[in-house]
């Protein structure tokens, strides 16, 4: 099985494969997010409690759930890279990190713009927001560590260890923050009540969650291709591409 995987881990093949997949995934992502967002903004019924402000949910929840997903996939890729020494996995992990950080940032900002009309302040130390903030720090740590090493093979290994340590810690941090905010916070309105959500709200939300996932995959492929080129600058096929690009 590893042989088969390895043949796809070959830099040139994976570069080309990613290039072939890219347009399809990009179209799918645009379509899903387009449909989900339009549905959410225009067609989903108004929330009886929060009015129109709840429409932020259609990007907040996808961003928040995908921020965690992206971290876990980064950690899995790092693990594969560390244990089986598959370079393609290292490159994939390095490509996901900045995307995850941006998605986490989006989750934070949308959470806080939603919080302002609901809670009356931009920031509350709500469990969800706090753990999202910590997740952003974890992402930034991985990115900064990866950037600090000159030799990117080492950089990937170091950042990979950190990502794995982080992923073990994420549930502990999440639990501690939940527990801490239940201690310190007077009961506020829950901003998402999934159980009571009607179908007309749930559908666009699910479409957008899926759309965000596909979008992350798409951008990962774009970055992955760049990463493959950057790490394989000594190989003839990359050099041929480079000469062609400059000649243009």
């Amino acid at each position: 099985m590893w042989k088969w995987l390895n043949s796809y881990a070959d830099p040139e093949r994976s570069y080309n494969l990613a290039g072939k997949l890219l347009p399809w995934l990009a179209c799918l992502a645009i379509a899903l997010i387009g449909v989900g967002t339009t549905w959410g903004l225009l067609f989903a019924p108004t929330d009886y409690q929060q009015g129109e402000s709840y429409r932020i949910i259609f990007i907040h929840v996808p961003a928040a759930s995908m921020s965690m997903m992206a971290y876990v996939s980064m950690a899995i890729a790092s693990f594969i890279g560390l244990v089986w020494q598959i370079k393609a996995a290292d490159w994939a992990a390095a490509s996901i990190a900045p995307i995850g950080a941006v998605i986490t940032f989006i989750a934070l900002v949308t959470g806080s713009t939603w919080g302002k009309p609901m809670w009356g302040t931009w920031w509350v130390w709500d469990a969800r927001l706090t753990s999202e903030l910590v997740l952003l720090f974890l992402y930034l740590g991985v990115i900064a560590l990866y950037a600090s090493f000159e030799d990117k093979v080492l950089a990937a290994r170091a950042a990979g260890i950190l990502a794995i340590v982080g992923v073990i810690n994420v549930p502990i941090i999440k639990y501690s923050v939940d527990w801490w905010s239940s201690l310190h916070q007077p009961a506020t309105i829950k901003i998402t009540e999934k159980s009571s959500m009607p179908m007309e709200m749930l559908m666009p939300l699910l479409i957008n969650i899926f759309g965000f996932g596909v979008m992350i995959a798409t951008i990962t492929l774009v970055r992955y291709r760049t990463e493959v080129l950057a790490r394989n600058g000594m190989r003839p096929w990359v050099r041929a591409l480079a000469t062609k690009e400059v000649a243009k």
Partner: protein
Amino acid sequence: MAENQKSEVLVHANELTCIREERILFDELSFDINAGDIVQIEGPNGAGKTSLLRIIAGLSRPYAGEVHYLNQNITRCRDEFNHDLLYLGHLAGVKSELTAEENLNFNLSISGYHDFDTSSILSKVNLSGFEDALAGHLSAGQHRRTALARLWHTNCRVWILDEPFTAIDKKGVEELEKLFIRHAESGGCVILTTHQDMGVVTEKQLRKIRLDYRFV
């Protein structure tokens, strides 16, 4: 090599590739090092001599390829390999806050030796009388010899020495060379880099692996 065909292969390098910061230092480098070999890695600065030594020692991971010790991948038998490996790098591994004796003591105990006589070992590297001197106060040569003292009390078969003769005087170099020959004759191997020519070890006893500076 032809003459030692019977002797066993201690270290086998299998298609080693080393890439540092997107520059290929060497690729698909394969060789065998047999018991009884004294091998000098030579080449200009930046050719990857130290990188090769560190890869063989298992300190660095090659970009591709693997190193075998007694037909086993060293990443699979790290403890056994480390048990039989004596590596001395650019950095001596001598703490300046500790005395020469304490340094030797620590270096030997961490490799598992016990019940040894530090002062007699130190006397072999001409450090008698300096046992209680802090390594930080010793001269460069004495500092280096504190590290080299380990070579006189070891049962490791594979010696990997990166520039062992730095800061060592002529007589010291000769003694070291004699020690290498003795070690090789007793079934060990020495892999080293050096810029100095060796006087005692003859061309016939010495094997060379050459690394060239590569532009691509």
